[in-house]
């Protein structure tokens, strides 16, 4: 009974997979669904590289079991296409090696949806959840602010 067949809603598709109940969502997304956008970093909830959206909110997929995601809308970086925040990351050059980028974008994407009028305090509070080893912080902040200022939030 430790293995279960579950149905997940991921990036607008219905996907059925078999997982151990103790598998994290990060592991299931990458290992079972080939969605390698969410990155393994600390596996401990600290770095944010594995961030996805669950029901529109940011979630560290290393802190969630795959079985907990049943009945929820899961979106990974593969589910975003040419959104304003993705374009802004390119325009502002908000990355260097790019390892933290999918997690940062998913967090920013949710921020822009949940708080389309976010002030500096809210931006800081949300973005503190992710770490960029290449220290692209200024450019990431510029990217978020450029979307808040100019374009339709979140895409």
């Amino acid at each position, binding site marked *: *009974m*430790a293995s*279960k067949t579950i149905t997940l809603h991921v990036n607008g598709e219905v996907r059925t997979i078999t997982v*151990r*109940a*103790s*598998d*994290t969502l990060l*592991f299931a997304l990458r290992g079972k669904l080939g969605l390698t956008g969410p990155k393994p970093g600390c*596996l*401990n*909830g600290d770095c*944010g590289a594995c*961030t996805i959206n669950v029901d529109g*909110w*940011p*979630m*560290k997929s*290393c*802190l*969630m*079991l795959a*079985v*907990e995601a049943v009945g929820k809308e899961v979106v990974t970086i593969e589910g975003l296409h040419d959104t304003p925040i993705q374009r802004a990351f390119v325009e502002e050059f908000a990355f260097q090696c790019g390892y933290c980028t999918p997690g940062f974008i998913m*967090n920013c994407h949710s921020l822009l949806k949940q708080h389309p009028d976010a002030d500096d305090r809210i931006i*800081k*509070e*949300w973005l*503190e*959840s*992710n770490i960029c080893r290449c220290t692209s912080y200024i450019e990431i902040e510029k990217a978020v602010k450029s979307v808040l200022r100019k374009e339709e939030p979140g895409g």
Partner: protein
Amino acid sequence: MLPFDFDYFQPKSLKEAVELFRYLEQQGKQPMFFSGGTELITLGRIDLAFSDAVIDIKNIPECKVMQYSGDYLFIGGALSLTQIEEANPFPLLTKVASEVADHTARGKITLGGNICAQIFYREAVLPLLLADSQLLIVGPEGVQTIHINDIFQQQLKLKKGELLVQTATERRFIEAPFFTVKRRQQWDTGYPLITIAALKIDQEFRVAISGLCPFPFRSQEAEAYLNRQGSMEERIDGALSVLPKPILDDVEGSAQYRLFVLRNLLYDALVALE
């Protein structure tokens, strides 16, 4: 990845959860209630936590309430810290909770899970200790409502198979003036060097602290000194002389440094609330 397997259950009622726990124990399992689950997921990975039968309580309606009934605010133990923060029904709790971990992680960490956690900071308990909150607990012996200060001594003294369902806090405490600060060794996220929460009610100060000792606490002995007549220095010296022991002395900060920081925080709290 977790190096062990477990069965996963999602009871829909308190009765089902409690009976399931008892049944699984009788089967020789090691059942565990799972709220945000961050403790089992992070500590399980490094072999510091284990369960072979996980009982997820997030589908139990009573564990998800956030509403006033009469003069009491009820908050379900399975609500995430972010949900509580966004709704902001209890500003002191919002402020303390909003300093735990980081914004995304707080979307998973729950109030009940933080209070019952192994990790010794358990910061979200501080406002409840100050506000004489009542805890609704369900277990094999039925439902009980217990004053938090009678059941939280260093940790929540739950018996095996008991579940924290809700906290209930009287409106007058929620509306009382408060002060809270979290000081870290460095940066703006992470575990505390010291977190202080203070509240003024009926002209008296109350103070609760996490990060000073290997458990969070409210000290009525320290409060008695703070509420005396006299200079700030004398009152704070008195309060510092009756703190519980041991004072943490680790890489986050020496015992001496923690006491130095606490002295200043007590001063700031008194100035803010006097």
